[in-house]
């Protein structure tokens, strides 16, 4: 099979990592597509939570914003934002949090705040939003990202959200009991942290992706797992459901 895009592969690989029992804190974009794809395929009872306060949503089309009306209409309940962050996220009720990144280092630390110096930024980015506490309070974190040298860097300019810090047991030293980033799903590969160093290593390459492509799109020297494999290509069902979802979304949100 070759009739799928890298973006579809990324979304499908992320969806596969989710199970029926998961409670996911969902962000807009790739995470939202992945979570809803999981719900529409192998994990029909997965619980999706958006930070707008909507719990147990089942949108028929993907929301454009974190607070679309569709999320509330299909939710089991909708709570206030303070309650969302206190009882549900900080309360330890979320098993998987999804995060994206403008800059990412090999230990899964994330920058979405500034490029350059904080006080005199080259580029002012949107900021952390929910990310700093999603990163620490969810059971584990999946990161999704399109690989690019300026996104995957040796040293990020600002630590918006802690991943594995300096690696090793740095999270535990910070008093954290949650697992932190356990998976990085890109348009080219699936990465997992080394059990000891916590450095992201490549677990599987998406079909057709070469090591040259990988290194060209990553700012640090890539390590590969000993049992490097290939990400299974999207199945016909996965592709069909994802494309249907995207088509419905496009039709619903119009021009």
């Amino acid at each position, binding site marked *: 099979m070759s009739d799928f895009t890298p973006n579809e592969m990324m979304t499908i690989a992320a969806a596969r990592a989710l199970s029926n029992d998961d409670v996911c804190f969902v962000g807009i974009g790739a995470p939202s597509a992945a979570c809803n794809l999981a719900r529409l395929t192998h994990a029909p009872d997965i619980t999706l939570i958006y930070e707008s306060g909507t719990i147990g949503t089942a949108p028929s089309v993907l929301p454009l914003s974190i*607070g679309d009306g569709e999320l509330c209409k299909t939710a089991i309940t909708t709570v206030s*934002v*303070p309650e969302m962050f206190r009882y549900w996220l900080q309360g330890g009720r979320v098993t998987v949090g999804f995060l994206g990144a403008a800059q990412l280092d090999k230990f899964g630390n994330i920058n979405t705040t500034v490029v350059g110096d904080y006080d005199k930024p080259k580029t002012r980015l949107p900021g*952390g*939003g929910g990310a700093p506490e999603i990163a620490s309070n969810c059971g584990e974190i999946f990161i999704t990202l399109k690989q690019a040298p300026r996104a995957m860097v040796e040293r990020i300019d600002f630590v918006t959200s802690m991943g594995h810090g300096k690696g090793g047991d740095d999270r535990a030293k910070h008093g954290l009991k949650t697992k932190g980033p356990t998976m990085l799903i890109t348009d080219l590969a699936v990465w997992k942290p080394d059990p000891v160093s916590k450095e992201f290593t490549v677990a599987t390459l998406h079909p057709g992706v070469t090591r040259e492509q990988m290194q060209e799109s990553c700012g640090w020297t890539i390590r590969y797992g000993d049992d490097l494999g290939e990400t299974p290509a999207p199945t016909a069902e996965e592709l069909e459901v994802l494309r249907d979802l995207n088509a419905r979304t496009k039709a619903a949100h119009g021009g």
Partner: protein
Amino acid sequence: MAKICSLAEAVESCIGDGDVVAMEGFTHLIPHAAAHEVIRQGRKDLTLIRMTPDLIYDQLIGMGCARKLIFSYAGNPGVGLLRRMRDAVENAWPKPLEIEEHSHAAMANAYEAGAAGLPMAVFRGYIGAELKRVNPNIKSVTCPFTGEELAAVPAIRPDVTFIHAQKATRRGDVLVEGILGVQKEAVLAAKRAVVTVEEIVEDFDDVHPNACVLPSWTVTAIAHVPGGANPSYAAGYYDRDNSFYIAWDKIASDRDAFTAWMKENVLEAGPDIFAERVKGL
């Protein structure tokens, strides 16, 4: 007790230059009409507080109303960056903008603490995160029972809060339904609160006993502004105008295009244009 009056009168009497202002609404029920009235009345030196300072704060900042912004996520939701805010932060246009930056959890807890009459919010946050280094308003307290160090931020206590809601009764009680955001907390935390509503009704007959109602005596002024949340949405009334959020990215990308848009749609318009805009949405 809340006074029911025109939006111009509500803004005139409730907000002054230099005030600390919160305008809340989490994607849903964002008080666009109220923000425009504040711009029209030329308020300046405002400290603006908002978790997600999207289009309305981009507009206030671009028009030079603000001296400081307290926020946790400055993006045009689903689209990209806030270009007027970036221009203020990066290039001091039209004037410099001081920023105080938090996480969503910190802001949500700080509103909650404000509503609860506390001086600070305590939560488990900012662990390993660098905002602590650049924001002196992020401190910590130690739990006297477990020794755990928890994050602390000052409570938010605005001089005035603006929100948009679905309904008010003639006696001034306000009903908010659906995605509630931090609106209730923002109103209860503030010295004064202005609410624009889609509809004024005799009574909330048959409303659920646990629905989010702000009693009349917690609100200062109420103005009837149908469509007042557009291009955001009001559940039960009209949908989000997604195309405007995309269009804004282009308008805000250029200082002249921005200035022209604000002149035509805000300075030389009034709150009644909102009802027109939401027809068909």
